[in-house]
């Protein structure tokens, strides 16, 4: 992580997070190349409960950043701190190169809250008009952008409906419309698809791609890993309020493969050996038996074997032949060795399960 300087003002004084105006650069926000989000040693305690332990990360301009973690890991709390809803206990952070609470930065930030509760007596267009005016959009700008935003989220026919009559999925859509209304440079989406059906999820994926094409930075917090995998450039997995894995999606997922192995007559000892040499993430052994035929290791007593054994294990590139040799040499009958690309889910389970469940 880089330190702070005038050009890179990751400013934030932990005791006075709401105050603004220190070390402001005069570059316009959209030309500024400072990180879209900069977080260093961020911590939040609610009384004695630590919600975010010690979080450091940086999101570059134009990135779609996936922010993952199990329930209660501190994702929402982090997003709330980045949006000035919650005061950090300590740490530094800046958004769009500006200190927290900076008005110019806030004009270019969109946020879909996790609970997406809105004033339900409003009509859809009235709701967007209210939020547009909070963004400081002129009447003319609002007139132009509200229909665009409604169209983007597929609610163009419902502009006169009251939010009270909206389903949860529609509320989530109007929440997204509100977040992208002011031509943002940075958009936070906290579980944007939690209330959506599969079609809605696909729509959100398309919206994120549209934003990505426009160069908008998207900070996406979702537990739907397929979704994150489909759209994100970089991913952080957090656990217990700390970053447990961080990197480009390709880097995190590539390099290693998951190999599914189906063998029979797998000697117990060989299974131990495989477990010792490789990172086994799944093993399913059925039926104890004795080796058929002479054991290849020599003429000793019959060996205990698993009649059927399915394994998933992590392999680096080029390790597959050695694995097959080991299995065959150990007396197992190999039926299938299927490599597949590691999915985000594998990574997630892997990272989050280290040290057991919470």
């Amino acid at each position, binding site marked *: 992580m880089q330190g702070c300087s005038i050009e890179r003002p990751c400013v934030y004084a932990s005791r006075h997070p*709401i105050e603004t105006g220190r070390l402001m650069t005069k570059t316009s926000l959209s030309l500024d190349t400072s990180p879209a989000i900069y977080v260093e040693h961020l911590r939040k305690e*609610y009384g004695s409960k630590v919600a975010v332990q010690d979080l450091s990360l940086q999101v570059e301009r134009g990135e779609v950043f996936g922010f993952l973690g199990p329930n209660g890991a501190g994702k929402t709390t982090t997003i*709330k701190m980045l*949006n*000035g*809803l*919650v*005061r950090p206990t300590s740490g530094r952070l800046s958004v769009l190169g500006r200190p927290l609470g900076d*008005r*110019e930065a*806030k*004009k270019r*930030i969109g*946020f879909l*809250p*996790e*609970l*997406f*509760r*809105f*004033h339900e*007596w*409003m009509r859809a267009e009235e709701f967007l008009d*209210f*939020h547009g*005016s*909070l*963004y*400081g959009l002129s009447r003319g700008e609002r007139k132009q952008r509200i229909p665009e935003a409604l169209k983007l989220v597929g609610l163009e026919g419902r502009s006169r409906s009251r939010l009270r009559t909206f389903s949860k999925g529609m509320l989530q859509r109007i*929440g997204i419309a*509100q977040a992208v209304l002011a031509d943002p440079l940075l958009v936070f989406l906290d579980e944007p698809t939690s209330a959506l059906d599969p079609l809605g999820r696909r729509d959100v994926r398309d919206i994120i791609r549209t934003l990505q094409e426009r160069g908008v930075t998207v900070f996406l917090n979702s537990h739907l890993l397929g979704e994150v995998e489909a759209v994100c450039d970089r991913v952080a997995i957090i656990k217990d309020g700390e970053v447990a894995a961080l990197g480009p999606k390709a880097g995190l997922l590539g390099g290693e493969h998951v190999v599914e192995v189906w063998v029979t007559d797998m000697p117990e000892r060989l299974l131990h050996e495989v477990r010792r040499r490789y990172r086994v993430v799944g093993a399913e052994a059925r039926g104890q038996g004795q080796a058929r035929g002479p054991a290849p290791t020599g003429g000793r007593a019959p060996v205990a074997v698993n009649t059927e054994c399915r394994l998933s294990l992590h392999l680096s590139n080029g390790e597959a032949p050695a694995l097959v040799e080991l299995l065959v040499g150990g007396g197992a009958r190999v039926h299938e060795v299927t490599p597949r690309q590691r999915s985000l889910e594998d990574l997630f389970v892997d990272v989050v399960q280290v040290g057991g469940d919470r």
Partner: protein
Amino acid sequence: MGGALILARFTFREAIRKKMVIWVLVLSAIFVGLYAYGFSSLRSNYLERVADGQEPPFGFAVFAGVMTVLGFYTVNFLSGVMAIFASVGSVAAEVDAGTFHAIVPKPVSRWEIVLGKWLGYALMLAAYVSLMCLSVLLVARYIGGYTPPNRVAGSALVVLVSLVLLSLTVLGSTFFSSLTNGIIVFMLYGVALMGGVVEQIGEFLQNDTLTSIGVGTSLVIPSDAVWRTASYLLQQSGGFSIQAIQTPFTASSNPSNAMLVYAVFYAAGALGLSTWVFGRRDL
């Protein structure tokens, strides 16, 4: 500051949409109707007595004066209750509902949000009190043929009463849930009414303990002290005094101007404190 105006407008629209405005106006129209009816029957009763030769000991202006102050008192009470109940959840309800999550990250300051909501309610209350005071004055004039002194000052002080209560309620709303806040502020309001009566009795009996209790409650919540000044002003006639007639709602002695200044600072201070508390709160 622009943000505060947006929130003020929002608050006003919310009150209209939630049908608060319409019901307040309907019930107030009923009140004005009853008041006018009462006033006119008082007048015909008085005239009947005069015709029968049983002229009451006071002129009609005395009765009309008391009726007018009672009318103002009712407006004062209604607007006070309205100030409390309209704003009881101004912050708390939005926090509980989570609606602030989409508003606070916008380019508006937190103090603008609180100030804007306060402003929205304050303007509605000021408009309401003005309308109602005007109705009372029109009834007094066209039915009772009576016009009290210090009409503008008296009405302005009734507005001040509602602003004191509004600020206190908004402050409470940054700490407590709507229900708790409503109960607390309403109890304080009741205590202030009691305190006012106690203070007047204390003054009448020249009992310092009672007077101090009254002054103490006025410091905790100066709504009733301001009302008593309004009441005093509305009865202050040059030629004769109608203050011979004592009711718990009217004032015989002029509370100090210091109390009015205190009330203004109290309202501003409570509002300032609520922006400060809300500014530091986790949402």
